């Protein structure tokens, strides 16, 4: 015979812990990475051990310090003897700035045009949607190539061009959602209470469609990083000796077999940043939705 020991829980007087608002581990890591990237971008001048154009030709193609390289160059050096770590930090700064500005410009312009189209209807809507269709039917890379080749290349122009990437998605999304709200939903009901349309849009409609737009931002942000990468790779983006993640990948391509440390860190930085933004966006969308929150609590 065996004795069955029964685990008895005596007194379940554990304090009712508030279980809400706990950050999942993955999201925590994403936030940590993005904060790190942001700090690197902001403090690049202080953090980077060398300047991005600083060469020491005698120290060319040194491997990373842990793989038998010079401890003075943690991630090794590139084909011109420049410190890869320093260049990576400056590259992160350039790419983040471009992606951030690009997303901001695109989302603001697109959302605004979407609201205008849905509010005014008629020819305003036709004109805006015509632009949207025009933008959507042209490969963006070709438009960007044309503009940059025609007007020459400056960092500011590059920012603006990148900013126009993806605006049409915001415009379309916003227009559809606003029309929906105006037609039968709360926006119509609030309008009949005598509230000004601008107030309805800012106070009621925008917060309601924000979760959709946030997701679009998190899709758009990595895309812009990749666009910057492609354009720089093609030589139309950031110009040497300045650097960006895309440019580092492009320069490192020639050495990928012999000096992989030139391209791989930039690739990892791109990968981790885009992944973090996407995951964070997904999580944010759920958090921003009050109906989903109670379901989870």
């Amino acid at each position, binding site marked *: 015979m065996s004795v069955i020991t029964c685990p008895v829980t005596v007194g379940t007087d554990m304090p009712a812990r508030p279980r809400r608002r706990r950050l999942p581990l993955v999201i925590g890591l994403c936030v940590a990475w993005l904060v790190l990237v942001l700090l690197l971008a902001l403090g690049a001048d202080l953090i980077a051990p060398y300047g991005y154009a600083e060469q020491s030709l005698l120290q060319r193609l040194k491997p990373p310090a842990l793989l038998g390289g010079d401890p003075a160059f943690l991630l090794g050096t590139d084909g011109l003897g420049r410190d890869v770590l320093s260049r990576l930090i400056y590259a992160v700064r350039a790419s983040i700035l471009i992606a951030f500005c690009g997303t901001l410009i695109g989302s603001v312009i697109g959302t605004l045009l979407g609201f205008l189209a849905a509010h005014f209807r008629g020819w305003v809507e036709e004109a805006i949607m015509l632009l949207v269709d025009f933008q959507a039917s042209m490969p963006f890379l070709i438009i960007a190539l044309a503009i940059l080749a025609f007007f020459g290349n400056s960092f500011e122009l590059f920012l603006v061009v990148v900013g126009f990437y993806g605006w049409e998605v915001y415009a379309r999304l916003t227009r559809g959602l606003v029309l929906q709200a105006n037609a*039968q*939903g*709360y926006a119509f*009901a*609030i*309008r*009949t*209470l*005598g*509230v*000004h*349309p601008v*107030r309805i849009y800012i*106070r*009621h409609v925008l*917060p*309601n469609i924000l979760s959709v737009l946030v997701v679009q931002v998190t899709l758009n942000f990595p895309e812009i990083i990749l666009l910057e990468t492609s354009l720089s790779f093609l030589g139309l983006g950031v110009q040497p000796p300045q650097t960006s993640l895309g440019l580092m990948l492009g320069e490192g391509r020639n050495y990928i077999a012999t000096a992989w440390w030139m391209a791989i860190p930039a690739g990892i930085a791109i990968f981790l940043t885009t992944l973090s933004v996407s995951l964070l966006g997904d999580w944010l969308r759920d958090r921003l939705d*009050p*109906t989903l929150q*109670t379901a989870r609590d």
Partner: protein
Amino acid sequence: MTAAVLELRDVTRHYGGKRQWLGRGAAIRAVDGVDLTLAAGEVLGIVGESGSGKSTLGRIAAGIEAPSSGMVTFQGQRYAPIDTAAWRRQRRRVQVVFQNPSQALDPRLTIAAQIRGVLAAHGIEALERGVDRTEAILSRVGLTGLGTRFPHQLSGGQLQRAVIARALVLSPEVIVCDEAVSALDVSVQAQILNLLKDLQAELGVAYLFISHDLGVVRHVSHRIAVMQRGRIVETGPASEVFARPQDPYTRSLIAALPAATPAARRARDAARQAA
């Protein structure tokens, strides 16, 4: 009864019939030459089957849709063109309670925040002699302490109470109830109807009460207008319309009502035979 607060003269509303690629489309006459008067503090019920144009009539009466022809006057004045500043000011005096309360409220704001927002939009003080208007109106409709809830945390009946509170907080003279209880289950319907009745008696608001449900309309209305295919076929005091319906359409509507007792059913069936 006192003077008319709302008057409709020969109002029509046609849909479609716009110029198309080839010729014109056929127009649908949702409302077709309707005359109607709503006295201050009166409850006028409008009944009719689906598609009889009663909702369109309600929207026109509330001033949120313009008639194709005819005249609507609210206290002797015509409605300002829709979406102008003057129109927004008039909104304070005519309110609409829609069928589906969950679609009429902003899902992202608490009930109290939505009511405060409406007050702010009209530049009305949040406090009235030291009493918070929002709290006061919420307790009046039976939602004491529920102002901090979001719409999805309330039941259908509570949501409709919130919508009614949001309409009443502006102290309007007319409320158009467009199928205001049709989306609720029967026991909750009765509660909301009684609330509307009490508020009406207390505040002297006039209702234009639109419903396809004769029983509901009979319960709240002083007068009843019966609509069929965009026209009003019969109108009169509620008891009169039910006791001695003149129009055959009204008779068929009343005959279709479910009977409460077997005796009532026999009487109804006998009336059907006679008709």
